[in-house]
């Protein structure tokens, strides 16, 4: 699992590559824990290469959800593979998080 963070003017682009499980969740948590994250208006998560997400992986996003919302930072997922989207959907997270098909749609949010 690789996590790449690329800041731009008002958003931070996180690119996830590989399987997000209990061991790699720590990497992502470190990234989302950074205080400067709250300076952005949006955090865009590119899931094109995210092949699997475990409950520990979901737990990382869930644990940061409230903090991001409280600071008016939008969490937007895009390019999500169907298998991964199903996991978000079954848990009901699609009603809480913004999941859009493409990067253009994500930038437009």
């Amino acid at each position, binding site marked *: 699992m690789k996590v790449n963070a690329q800041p731009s003017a008002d958003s931070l682009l996180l690119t996830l590559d590989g399987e997000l499980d*209990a061991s790699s969740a720590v990497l992502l*948590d470190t990234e989302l824990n950074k205080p400067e994250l709250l300076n952005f208006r949006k955090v865009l998560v590119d899931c094109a290469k995210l092949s699997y997400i475990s*409950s*520990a992986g*979901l*737990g*990382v996003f*869930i*644990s940061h*959800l*409230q903090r991001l919302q409280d600071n008016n930072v939008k969490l937007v997922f895009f390019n999500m593979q169907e298998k991964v989207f199903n996991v978000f959907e*079954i*848990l*009901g*997270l699609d*009603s*809480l998080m913004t999941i859009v098909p493409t990067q253009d749609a994500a930038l437009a949010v």
Partner: protein
Amino acid sequence: MRNPLLLIGFLLALLSGGLAAASLWGPHGGGPPPWLAWAALAADLGLLAVLAVLFFRKPAPAAVAAVPRRAEVQSLQRLVQIVQHGQTSAEIYHILLEAAVQTARADAAWLDLNPDHASIGGADATQYYRLAPAQADALRAGLRVLPLPPHEDEFITNDLNLHPGFAAFPTDFRSLMQLPLRGPRLDYGVLYLLKAEPHTFDSEDLSVLQTFTSQAVLSIENLTLNAIALHNQRTQEELKIASEVQDSLIPKKLPTDDWFEISTHSLAAKEVGGDFYDFLLLPGRRLAVIIGDVSGKGITAAFHMAQMKGIFHALMQGNPLAKNERDRFPLPSRFMAQANAALAHCLERSSFITSSLYIIDYQQGGFMFARAGHCHTLYYHALREEVFYFQSTGLGLGIIRNEGYEKHINNQFYDYGPGDVMVIYTDGIVEARGAGQEEYGEARLKQRLEECYFQGAEVIKQCILNDLNSFTAGQPIHDDQTLLVIKFKAVQPGLAA
């Protein structure tokens, strides 16, 4: 002082010689051939001769020689003591210090222990023998000036006062022997022996005491290993107890009535797991069924699983103040909202629980359920001869921890008919992996039910499990698995029953 190792060799040679002789003259059963025993005896006599020469090389006056030899035997006994009687590392260090002082007939000594290790067994960081801590401090300061590497090596100095470190402050102790306690991973400390007279320690003393220090280190290492083994064993036993306790939380006696049958399966990936299910028969011939899955595995998940079971039983006890029988029990969505509020205080921020609650009503011929982020329910509709997954929305528990949760959960109603089948499970079933790491999946589960819906609940469960087990053959199970099959009997008894 004589080398006691020589004495051991002597004794060993005598003993083995005796054994060789015994095998030669004793009855010949299945023992070694006599020529071997002869050869052994000959070699042994040779060894005896060599040892005897070494031992009596410098004949000393009889009166003087008797004392050191008794001392040697005593030092051997002390060595054995280190091995046998040290129950704690503090005791071992104490025995080592005493044994070394007596064997080397030192006037004073101290033992500096590695502070990283000294705490094990409650040993003090420094142990003294007829020496004040201030004296040891002065000696340590003087030794630091020595050109020799101070801690890594054994060494003997014949006269400390000839060394630059002691030029300004001459010491009462002229001879010093330094012996490090070296372990394979850790240096345990350094032993210093002192004598008032110069030129009193020799290399023989050093080699004897080295056997003492290495024996002490070995004993300490054994103690540490024993402690670790004991700790592991305790943890294993505690886990076994946890596993038994958790097993007792899983219902063994399934509810029975003449309008349904139930079959269950549960398997934890570790000793304890985070899956759970439970049943309660409610008044009015209603059946409450709950299933859940705590995120994560092992002990943490098991605690929350137990908690969820408690929440289920507490909320399903019924509210005695309710105006009528129907209102006594919370609707599934209300139940989930209350459970969510209860869990909000104790679930760690990154954990969540998925759950579904079904209340099946025989009098109404239907059921109501709420799905809180849990796997979709698989259903066989007998009248339409169709197998499908219920599509409903609902958020997992512990994700939103405020009043807002209730907006994300709702009830779904469904009328069941005779012969219908409900398959309720956790993701450990559909996400079980095969040899190529592919998942078992919802589609394959659906196919199985399409093949065996007409069977009884037990046979349907077995049919699914057999297929799952052949799919995952040889793969370790990495998530807890739970499977419940509820079959509404083909002939539903009359309501008056």
